[in-house]
């Protein structure tokens, strides 16, 4: 895990977080929160685009994804990341506006680092920052 926690942090640079959300408003809000916590952020609108980016960008410290997206859900993206020998060490955090325990448990069992209820608060990100990327 030590490797995973330092993953994506360039020497003297900010950790790089990939934010995935099909809602433009939510993408802007989560990007703003992450930037205010000194992360470098790339935001994309689908799981497909996230996988494309992960294919070309080796320095991603964490993925934070919405659960409910068309075509590929956050859960499906999580599964693809955890099935990949190259990507599986990247912590994946799932966000959802609905507090559905079966959904939360399913994601955590699949290896999600955390499950955040939307709207995500700066305090949620601070907590993640100290736990996932320390």
């Amino acid at each position, binding site marked *: 895990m030590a490797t995973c926690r330092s993953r994506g942090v360039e020497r003297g640079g900010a950790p790089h977080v990939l934010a995935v959300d099909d*809602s*433009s*408003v*939510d993408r*802007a*809000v989560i990007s*703003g*929160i992450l*930037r*205010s916590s000194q992360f470098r952020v790339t935001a994309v609108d689908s799981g497909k685009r996230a996988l494309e980016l992960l294919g070309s960008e080796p320095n991603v410290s964490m993925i934070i994804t919405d659960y*409910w997206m068309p075509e590929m859900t956050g859960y499906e993206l999580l599964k693809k990341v955890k099935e990949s020998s190259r990507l599986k060490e990247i912590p994946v955090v799932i966000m959802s*506006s609905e507090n559905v325990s079966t959904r939360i448990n399913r994601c955590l069992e699949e290896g999600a680092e955390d499950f955040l209820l*939307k*709207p995500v*608060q*700066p305090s949620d990100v601070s907590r993640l920052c100290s736990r996932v990327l320390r």
Partner: protein
Amino acid sequence: MAAAALTSQLNALVNNMFAMGLLDDQFQQLQMLQDSTAPDFVSEVVTLFCDDGERIICELSRQLEKPNVDFDRVDSYVHQLKGSSASVGAQKVKNTCIQFREFCQQRSRDGCLKTLDLVRTEFYDLRNKFQAMLQLEQQIQACYPKH
């Protein structure tokens, strides 16, 4: 008008939006994220919300005009509007979206149409106030010379 008078007008407008229940604490969280590194953060998010909300409301009207309403599809659009409303702190619109989703689950076209009218009124009321807010912010910025 002097910057101080415009600022006081802006504060009164935003306070009134809170007092009327149009906004909740989430909007304050957005305001706190605006700083010198992200000076236009609130206006960017609010503009995205206004554009997105208008698109969703048009789509909802279209969906509910169809002879066979696909309530799951309608529900998915309302879910989107509820999510973006929650993210900007648009409390009233968000709460009406919660009622709207109940009518989707009941497969009630009449309920959905009535709630669409309500959400449309609330959304455009909020949008007008947001536009007035952004205009005042621009006027305030124009009072200060750029370095």
